[in-house]
């Protein structure tokens, strides 16, 4: 595989979604025509080598997908594995988003003290949580639980959760931040106390 093809493969893979061919050509600093040639080469490569991947073109976009030959096969593997029960950790994340939503991913990470992106993704795939625009920062999202999830617990509105008022407001995480400040420089305070 030539270097351009490999780069196209890497980008298409990392994006997952369809990618605009023109944008890709610009990025690779090649002409549209060259771009088409590279795409053709990559398509051929997958066919000639009987890979499990293929390229799908639609309008001005191309997308890397798993080979249609294995469509059912892949779907049945996914079915089997996505339907696994949620882990306790994932349920904890769900409870955080329920009681504290709308909440950003990094706030969830902070509350649990571990990175939760994987679990958040998993919850979103199952339709338990939804992304909403972050009003404070348009570059990031916030999460809330879905209406379907509320219904599955027999309620209509988030406020109907047990102890919602109290648990939605409880100050959390602040203690952590304070102590970080204290340790990273505010030692004088501590000395004064000791005296």
């Amino acid at each position, binding site marked *: 595989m030539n270097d351009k093809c490999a780069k196209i493969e890497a980008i298409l893979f*990392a994006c*997952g979604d369809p990618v605009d061919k023109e944008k890709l050509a610009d990025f690779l600093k090649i002409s549209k025509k060259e771009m088409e040639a590279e795409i053709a080469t990559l398509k051929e490569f997958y066919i000639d080598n009987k890979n499990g991947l293929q390229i799908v073109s639609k309008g001005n976009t191309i997308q890397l997908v798993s080979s249609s030959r294995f469509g059912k096969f892949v779907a049945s593997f996914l079915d089997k594995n*996505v339907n696994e029960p949620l882990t306790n950790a994932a349920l*904890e994340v769900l409870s*955080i988003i329920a009681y504290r939503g709308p909440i950003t991913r990094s706030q969830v990470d902070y*509350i649990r003290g571990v990175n939760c992106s994987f679990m958040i993704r998993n919850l979103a795939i199952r*339709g338990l949580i939804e992304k909403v625009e972050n009003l404070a920062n348009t570059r990031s999202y916030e999460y809330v639980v879905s209406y379907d999830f509320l219904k599955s617990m027999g309620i209509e509105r988030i406020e109907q959760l047990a102890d919602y008022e109290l648990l939605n407001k409880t100050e959390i995480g602040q203690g952590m931040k304070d102590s970080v400040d204290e340790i990273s420089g505010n030692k004088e305070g501590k*000395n004064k106390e000791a005296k």
Partner: protein
Amino acid sequence: MYQIKTTQFEGPLSLLLELFEKQKLDVTKVSLAQVADDYLAHLEDGKNADLANLSEFLLIASSLLLIKSKALLPLFEFSEEEEEEIKDLEERLREYQKFKQASERMERIYKLERVCFSKEPQQKLTMEFISPGVSKDDLNRLFIGVLKEIPTKKELVQEIMEEVISLEEKMMHLKYSIEKRAQVAFTETIAKAKDKIEVIVTFLAMLEMIKQKTLVVSQRELFGEIIMQAKHKD
């Protein structure tokens, strides 16, 4: 003069290692004696007396004092336990050194940004709704559990800072004792010490006061009682 960064992350091992590296020494028992003075000088420096990890600094200081005393008194023999303690310190230093070097190599690779990306989830991948089978009460219990797991400010501060015994405080204390009475035995001052660390701090406080010429000590025999007296400026 070398300065220790007074962040909580710089520990006694990294200080010792920097002293070794500065003098281009390998980590051995002999070279430990050579850097012991520098190390203790940093601890005696009042600025460093309230380091967050003072106790860890002091535990190692006690091993260094032991090694130093051997260097000063050739006839002095280490007990088996002391030998073990010194060997342990050497091993820990070498071990730490390996990881420090490994982390430097790791940083170089990390900075190359030869990053692999996983596939972003396809937008279409959202599946049908699958009920997790949790009730309202389950969710409540789960969230309260999460709240309980969050370390409180107090716990964290205590864990990191511990209770700092400041050298300064100890010196005030000693000064008070010797002013009240003509003579004070060292063992008396440490009779109520909570742990080894407090003994060490008291000892360091005594050394510091000798240096500042506010106190004189006498000792009749090797390992005999140390008697402290106030030194009055005439």
